[in-house]
């Protein structure tokens, strides 16, 4: 038999040190002072890949070694937005140097539609062309350059048709990718007609390119039977497995998808990582060679969908205090050419049209407009941010109408006792938390003193205007597609006591793997070093949900915990009989795993069995040391017929205060200071959570300020690289940036250790910057009016808004001074 290694802490440490020296990261790993190395949940712990990240050893798809004969793929993309493909002559492409294979739709052995939820996404265009960047054919060659050169030799003829690029016009023509959905609570018409005041307005909320720094990439190896192994930068390995199997017309079990880490995902690799894997898989099967796809940045930006741009309209009634009585809200999501995830994305915009405020009696209507652009898709917040923009705009509008500070109006409208049910029927829990959070931030950011200073500054300065705003976030946690709220995990304990955990979630920088390892370490009473996680693989945990909806740690953490609990119970049963059998066994009651040992009994009678000894004894006694875990979120339901239910297990809250300075003659502005207080329940890992809050805010701010997607009249994306599409850079980091986690409010629902999801909610904290810009502009008219400010609020848009306000002031002054 094998030798079982004794697991003493001393030898484990010596081994780790030696390995560290071998790999060259010993000194680095040893001197981590801020980030504790003991890693129970609730404590700050370094990202599981931290050392690899700083030494360049963390491997992404394009870093994986492939056989020397691996093929490189380049894609032939449509140059027009709408039309019919009349001729596709690829003879010259096929005979170009280095080319090994060229495929089009006729070469697909199985399904040709790879729509993720609903049909509508052909793997290659067949007849109808639906957007610029749609895939027509793929070339596989000996080198990347050879493939790209060959693509240019194609002769493509398209009978071009007018492209539909305006979602509002499309909605008027009822050109939708999915049916319209309506939510209604109470008599909204009566609320409007009975209200003391009514505002009516509309807004355009821009889209957003994911700009994951690692572009779409995959590497596919043919296996010895009919299948493939797919390495992919991907948030949804199980779906890619399904789609690859379907296009190849082979059973799912012949496809294994492996995913170690992404260089950013943000939603852009939830459904839109699959097409490349499908294409590479077809080529790998046809040629028997490993096949690589890596999209160049400009192609990545043209071929893949983005955050949905939205057109929102609202008509809202409120009383003399500015409290909403009800109204009518319509959102039109620009979905692009196919459904993709747009059904759920527009739903989420509707679910968040209230943000943290009771709408009163309201009707919310959501349209999914079809246009000739790439199919818009998931992006951090998933429609929620676009929905919230309505009510945040309205809060500012109401405040100006009544001559009140916007914060006063926001606070009056927050969900509160008696006004605590959403327009889709879900009661809002933890109201105390919401109110405390805002009160605390109001104080810690010194809101009112700064308000005075801002007003004084603006009175003195005609050109540079300052703005200040506090905006809250209430974000619903759960997939709104109920069946996705499940997760699995696979736990192995090896005979040296080391532990391997796998789960269905994917790591994209959010620290999910670190958190899941912390859960396992806590349940088994081990050091974090003893728990390892490897790549996410469909042959380890099957039928998984995408890592999305912020739910990665909630779902997979619980599944991992479930596996630990079952294994623990088995080990306890075993230990109770096995150890100290001469003295009648151990006390099963109160047995626990702590500090690397099983502990039974207490006081005098306490017995400690070191983990290594326990594991070895269990193995020799033929007790299984492996377990699977499963979790499904309780309580949630939503009925589309009645548009009522409890779609979310709980809400996560947060709030931000932003201060800006605007040059009202140029439209240029600076974000001077940002203060954030964010709710993560009892944090699983404060360092990771604060990083998510900071990063989410920056990304949200970019969405609303600098990130402008531009298409030309022919439907071609012209902002197709970092030179023309501006994501936040170092200079956009606010000079003062205070970020804190709300303390003392564990999740009221039984989430994993009462923590809360953190991936998406902080994104919407960026709204404070937008609202502060409007505040600065309002000062131009003595705060009597909140100007319309569509997003992104680029300097150009800010300038236009400032000019419009000045014109109106002039006009009204002239009218005032005109002789009677």
């Amino acid at each position, binding site marked *: 038999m094998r030798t079982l290694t004794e697991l003493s802490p001393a030898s484990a440490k010596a081994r780790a040190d030696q390995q560290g020296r071998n790999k060259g990261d010993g000194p680095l790993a040893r001197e981590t002072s801020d980030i504790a190395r003991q890693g129970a949940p609730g404590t700050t712990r370094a990202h599981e890949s931290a050392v690899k990240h700083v030494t360049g050893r963390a491997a992404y798809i394009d870093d994986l070694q492939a056989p020397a004969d691996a093929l490189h793929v380049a894609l032939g993309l449509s140059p027009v937005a709408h039309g019919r493909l009349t001729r596709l002559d690829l003879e010259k492409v096929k005979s170009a140097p280095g080319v090994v294979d060229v495929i089009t739709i006729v070469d697909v052995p199985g399904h040709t539609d790879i729509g993720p939820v609903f049909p509508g996404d052909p793997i290659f265009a067949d007849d109808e062309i639906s957007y610029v960047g749609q895939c027509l054919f793929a070339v596989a060659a000996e080198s990347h350059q050879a493939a790209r050169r060959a693509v240019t030799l194609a002769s493509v003829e398209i009978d071009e048709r007018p492209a539909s690029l305006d979602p509002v016009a499309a909605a008027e023509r009822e050109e939708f990718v999915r049916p319209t959905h309506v939510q209604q609570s109470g008599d909204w018409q009566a609320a409007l007609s009975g209200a003391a005041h009514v505002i009516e307005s509309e807004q355009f909320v821009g889209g957003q390119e994911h700009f994951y720094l690692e572009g779409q990439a995959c590497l596919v190896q043919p296996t010895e039977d009919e299948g493939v192994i797919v390495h992919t930068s991907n948030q949804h390995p199980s779906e890619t497995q399904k789609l690859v199997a379907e296009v190849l017309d082979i059973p799912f079990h012949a496809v294994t998808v492996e995913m170690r880490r992404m260089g950013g995902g943000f939603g852009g690799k939830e459904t839109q990582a699959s097409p490349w894997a499908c294409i590479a898989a077809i080529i790998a099967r046809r040629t028997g060679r490993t096949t690589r796809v890596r999209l160049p940045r400009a192609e990545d930006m043209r071929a893949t969908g983005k955050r949905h741009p939205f057109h929102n309209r609202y008509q809202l009634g409120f009383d003399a205090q500015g409290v909403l009585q009800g109204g009518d809200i319509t959102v039109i999501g620009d979905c692009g050419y196919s459904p993709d995830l747009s059904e759920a994305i527009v739903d989420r915009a509707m679910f968040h049209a209230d943000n943290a405020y009771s709408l009163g009696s309201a009707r919310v209507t959501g349209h999914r407009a079809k246009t000739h652009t790439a199919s818009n898709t998931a992006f951090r917040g998933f429609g929620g941010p676009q929905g919230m923009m309505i009510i945040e705009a309205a809060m500012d509008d109401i405040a100006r109408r009544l001559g009140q500070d916007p914060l006063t109006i926001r606070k009056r409208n927050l969900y509160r006792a008696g006004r605590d049910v959403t327009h889709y029927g879900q009661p809002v829990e933890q109201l105390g938390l919401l109110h405390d959070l805002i009160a605390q931030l109001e104080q810690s950011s010194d809101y009112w003193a700064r308000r005075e200073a801002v007003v004084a500054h603006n009175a003195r300065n005609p050109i540079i205007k300052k703005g200040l705003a506090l905006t809250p976030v209430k974000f619903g946690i759960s997939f709104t597609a109920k069946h996705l709220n499940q997760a699995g995990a696979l736990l192995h304990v090896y005979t040296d006591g080391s532990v391997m955990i796998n789960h269905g979630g994917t790591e994209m920088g959010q620290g999910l793997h670190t958190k899941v390892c912390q859960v396992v370490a806590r349940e088994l009473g081990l050091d974090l070093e003893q728990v390892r996680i490897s790549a996410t693989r469909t042959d380890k945990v099957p039928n998984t949900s995408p890592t999305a909806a912020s739910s990665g740690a909630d779902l997979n953490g619980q599944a991992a915990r479930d596996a630990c609990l079952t294994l623990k119970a088995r080990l306890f049963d075993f230990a109770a009989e096995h150890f100290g059998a001469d003295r009648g066994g151990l006390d099963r009651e109160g047995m626990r795993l702590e500090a690397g040992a099983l502990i039974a009994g207490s006081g005098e009678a306490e017995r400690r069995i070191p983990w290594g000894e326990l594991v070895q004894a269990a193995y020799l006694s033929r007790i299984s040391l492996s377990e699977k875990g499963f979790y499904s979120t309780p309580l949630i339901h939503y009925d589309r017929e009645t548009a009522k239910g409890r779609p979310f297990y709980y809400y996560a809250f947060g709030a931000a205060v932003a201060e800006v300075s605007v040059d009202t003659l140029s439209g240029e502005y600076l974000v001077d200071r940002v203060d954030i207080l964010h709710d993560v329940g009892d944090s699983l890992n404060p360092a990771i959570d604060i990083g998510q809050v900071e990063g*989410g805010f920056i990304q949200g701010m970019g969405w609303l300020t600098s990130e402008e997607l531009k298409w030309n009249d022919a439907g071609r994306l012209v902002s197709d690289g970092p030179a023309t599409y501006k994501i936040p850079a170092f200079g956009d980091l606010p000079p003062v940036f205070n970020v804190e986690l709300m303390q003392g409010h564990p999740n009221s629902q039984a989430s994993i250790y009462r923590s809360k999801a953190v991936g998406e909610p902080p994104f919407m904290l960026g709204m404070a910057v937008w609202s502060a810009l409007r505040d600065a502009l309002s000062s131009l008219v003595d705060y009597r009016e909140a100007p319309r400010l569509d997003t992104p609020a680029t300097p150009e848009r800010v300038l236009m808004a400032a000019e419009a306000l000045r014109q109106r002031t002039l006009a009204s002054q002239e009218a005032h001074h005109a002789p009677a």
Partner: protein
Amino acid sequence: MVTLTINGRQHELDVPEQMPLLWALRDVVRLTGTKFGCGIAQCGACTVHLDGEAVRACVTPVSQAQDREITTIEGIADDAVGSRVQRAWLELGVAQCGYCQSGQIMGAAALLKQTASPSDEQIVEAMDGNLCRCGTYSRIRQAIHRAAEHGEESA
């Protein structure tokens, strides 16, 4: 033939003179720590050092890198400043997805070689071309200050 000195070791490469250094490093020498983000000098993911100065490897032809000391993320730990930067990065848990971080670390190390204790403004100026989509800028700023402090301690 192009001769490159990378992390102190000489490599003879049979590549065209105009090949971007990034591809020579990644595809030929197989040092994949340096990343591709855009290919047009707009993101900083491919930052390496030539004689201690930060350059964008995606737009630097190998011919320009001959006769100069090339340092990549794989070799930066051997540099006193570089290893302090790595240490600060770990202490503050900077990286999220990690993809930009090789470039960030190389940028930060080059800055600290020139300016031992940079101000916030100097950090912005030096690092503005290094994009991070995960938005880790705040921690990068703190980590650069931290690495500068470590430098003072060891001075």
